[in-house]
């Protein structure tokens, strides 16, 4: 147990250490930098995996706390790192995807400038993500959440041209605005109900607070979710996400699949399930409005995606739409729905990262940025195209991909819940998803060959392997959805905890 307690801290510090080692490395030491990066990623994954058996099967909750903020009453508020299944779930996702993204980024950025800076912040970004996932209370969450905002700024601005800086500024503006809203919410809630340690089924203090001053509880909920909604790109707070597409492809992958958007939506899950508790939130009547917002986001994001002609922008709007599935699942107030939403947290991650990896590959090898540029890519870059196809099918929700699993689970959840109309949202969104992804797949495989314009079609191995891995995961996670320790099974476990 004692050893386990240290692991959460070790995982966070590991990435920080990696960053600290990488920052001062001179540009030319590519090998060393890559080695440190990969070693860090592998060790991190190993540590997270080490936590799975005790947490999931034995029900242990390794915890590490350090006093952080003084309070008037003596007991300081602590920074708490605690591992529960949901935390492990998210950390596992980020650990796996970080490893792959690191490999990809090493290949992608080969020969460009400022790599040490990039990888340094990259590691910090993951440190923040792991911190977010292991956070044991709202303050800790807030700390890492803001840290994430800060360390992603240099990544978005990485290319250092006017456009990147503008996008980064927009991102910063949105993210900080959201961060401030969260801060105010957390301060208020902490003052009223203590530091609000995350607890399965909701914190008791918060429940009591909500029972005697429901109005304040609703306002705090709105502040928290509104702030988190910025990062999770809920409409109308989503504009930063498509703009941030100017960043290098690994960063987009990170933003969309591993870290930023996920952090926001993970936060919403935490607030609904582990701070307020879903019963309390339901009684307060805050779930339905959020559900409606999520529904609008799902549809609107798909609609916007349909209108885009650039690959990356289409993917970005697709993220807007897809991430809200998680919110949809969590707020529909049914156990199956929560399980589906939580599972989609992982499913969306692996599918979307596949797509971004592939988009980056297309852009790198063929210079393809618009969908029409992809004509005939299936012939020249068959592996990339295959991976993209798997990802796209996942996004549409075709079996046997991971996307189908979450969609099905969410559909069942909707039918169990008091809001069966959500099924209509799911169906319409499936149609729209198909409408904007199938043409891409069609263009890839069956489009007319382009003329001499794009001749090359090299698929660099460092970029290809991660894409194939995630595509493989998409299928494996989908096919093996009922295996023990599969995302779906773990999210069912989590959902049971939520409704216990």
């Amino acid at each position, binding site marked *: 147990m004692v050893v386990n307690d240290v692991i959460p801290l070790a995982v966070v510090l590991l990435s920080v250490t990696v960053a600290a080692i990488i920052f001062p490395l001179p540009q030319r030491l590519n090998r060393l930098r890559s080695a440190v990066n990969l070693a860090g990623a592998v060790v991190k994954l190993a540590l997270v995996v080490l936590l799975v058996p005790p947490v999931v099967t034995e029900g242990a909750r390794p915890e590490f706390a*350090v006093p952080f903020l003084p309070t*008037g009453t003596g007991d300081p508020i602590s920074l708490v790192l605690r591992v529960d299944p949901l935390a492990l779930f998210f950390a596992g996702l980020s650990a796996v995807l970080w490893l792959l993204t690191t490999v990809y980024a090493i290949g992608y950025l080969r020969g460009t400038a400022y790599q040490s800076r990039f990888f340094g912040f990259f590691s910090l970004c993951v440190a923040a993500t792991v911190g977010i996932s292991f956070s044991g209370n709202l303050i800790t969450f807030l700390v890492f959440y803001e*840290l994430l905002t800060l360390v992603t700024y240099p990544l978005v601005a990485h290319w250092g*041209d006017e456009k990147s800086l503008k996008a980064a500024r927009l991102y910063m503006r949105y993210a900080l605005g959201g*961060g401030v809203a969260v801060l105010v919410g957390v*301060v208020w809630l902490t003052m009223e109900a203590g530091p609000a340690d995350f607890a399965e089924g909701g914190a008791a203090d918060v429940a009591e607070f909500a029972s005697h001053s429901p109005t304040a509880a609703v306002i705090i909920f709105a502040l928290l979710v509104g702030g988190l909604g910025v990062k999770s790109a809920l409409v109308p707070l989503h504009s930063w996400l498509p703009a941030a597409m100017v960043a290098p492809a690994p960063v987009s992958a990170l933003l969309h699949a591993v870290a930023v958007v996920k952090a926001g939506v993970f936060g919403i899950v935490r607030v609904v399930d582990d701070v307020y508790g879903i019963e309390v939130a339901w009684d307060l009547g805050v779930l339905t409005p959020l559900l409606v917002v999520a529904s609008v986001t799902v549809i609107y994001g798909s609609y916007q995606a349909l209108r885009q002609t650039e690959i990356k922008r289409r993917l970005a709007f697709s993220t807007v739409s897809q991430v809200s599935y998680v919110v949809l699942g969590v707020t529909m107030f049914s156990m199956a729905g929560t399980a589906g939403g939580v599972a989609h947290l992982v499913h969306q991650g692996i599918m979307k990262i596949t797509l971004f990896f592939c988009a980056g590959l297309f852009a790198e090898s063929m210079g393809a940025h618009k969908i029409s540029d992809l004509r005939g890519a299936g012939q020249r870059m068959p592996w990339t195209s295959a991976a993209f196809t798997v990802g796209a099918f996942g996004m549409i929700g075709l079996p046997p991909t991971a996307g189908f699993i979450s969609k099905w689970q969410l559909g069942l959840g909707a039918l169990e819940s008091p809001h069966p109309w959500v099924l209509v949202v799911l169906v319409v969104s499936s149609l729209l998803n198909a409408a904007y992804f199938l043409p891409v797949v069609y263009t890839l495989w069956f489009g007319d060959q382009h003329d001499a314009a794009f001749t090359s079609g090299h698929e660099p191995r460092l970029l290809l392997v991660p894409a194939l891995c995630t595509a493989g995961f998409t299928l494996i996670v989908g096919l093996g959805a009922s295996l023990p320790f599969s995302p779906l099974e773990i999210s069912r476990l989590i959902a049971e905890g939520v409704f216990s």
Partner: protein
Amino acid sequence: MTFTQFSLGALALLPLLAAALTMLLPHPVRRALGVLVALLVAGFTAPVLGSVTSGELTELVLGGFDAPLGIHLRGDGLAAVFLGVTSLVGVVVTGYAAVLPKSTGAHLSATSWVTSHPGFWPLWLGCWSGLNAVYLSGDLFNLYVSLELVGLTAVALVAVGGQSAWEPALRYLFIAVLGSLMFLAGVGLLAAVTGTLDLHQTRSQLDELEDPTLPLLALTLITVGLAMKVALLPMHRWLVPAHSAAPSAVSPILSGVVIKAALVVLLRCWLWALPAVPGMQWLAWLLGGLGVAAVLVGSVLALRQDRLKPLVAYSTVAQIGYWFVAFPLLLHGEHDGAPLGSGAYNGLVALAAGHAIAKAGLFTAAGFLKDRCGTDKMSALRGAGAHHPVLILAMGMCAVGLLGLPISLGFTGKWQLATAAVGAEQWWVLLVVAAGTLLSAAYLLRGIAPLLLQAEVPENAPAAGPVRGRERLGEIAVLIFGVATIGTGLLGAWLGDLLEVGAWW
């Protein structure tokens, strides 16, 4: 006399002696001596911090004179925090100045202007001595004297910056003296009423007093006078030129610690010297209102600057506002058993301490860039970060502190301020904190983002020249500030414990 007590005395006197000594020495030796003294001072700070951490209040009566006239040094929580911060800033800035003498100003040698100014060393050491004395003083008399020492040396330090710095220095001088005169008048009034200058004795004397008018008048004079020295809006106008025109090694001292000296004096007067006098809240609200205005106006003005150092200086104006926003909350009672006043006070101190480190870092960086590129116009600094990744990283870390994002003392302070405000149901504070955070993000981004541009660094620009080893060392100074900004953020709880020692409540 224990070693801790000895340390108290040494902290106040050692730099002063060293300052006197340096005046007799040639320039290179001054640098070496300066670094030595800085390290010694830091060394003497450690036992004080240690004893305060263990909950002890160390006191020293110098020269055998006891209250009311003696030199009475008290190493309490407030003193310890600011001693620690000042030592940190002092050591790093001293090192920076020793490595890059260019940053110490410019002087006229025979016929031409030479960069580096030997006068920097005695002035800075003298200033440091004054600062330490301000923190440690347990009586109003010493507070006054040491504050004047700080003021005098600070004005001279600005003037060291060369021609362009003389006028700002003079303006600073007038305000500083006027402020101290008001302070003096207030102290005089208090002394006339109580017959003593010792903080504790004053407080107990005033407790028995029936008519609060005179203490209140005294407090008003003291407050206005010190607010001038702190540069609370709208009495901030001297600060911007003075801090911008000062040499690179001086601006961080001025913005980082010198204005904190006046703040400490203000806190001593409000919280230690005076009991809760009815009518005080009016003054507190006035300060709070000005604080809000300072946060907003300072940020907006920072946003309009096109040069880096004035931008950073206006950022100081804005940050000063936060400290005063806390004043109305200082007088509040309890909420759920948690004393709100102490929460606000903790927040204020954390904000000020965090600001000291972060702002010192940012000003060092700005000065560094100005020295290197010959200008601090932001349009000319585009892409300057290309050769200084470490510098940019460090600036970013300092910016975190100024923004009040976790992990930094700025966050700790804002958190405590905000919780105290929620407890007191002063919701406007939350709005101010939120608006201030966003505005400061805007101006800091405006300051730092252009440096990140990688596109066009003209070949012949000074920024494109090779970076010397010494300059790399200078960057390390900023990095230390950056790391310290983040690192101290973890010390929030410890800071709270420290401030318990010798607190007024």
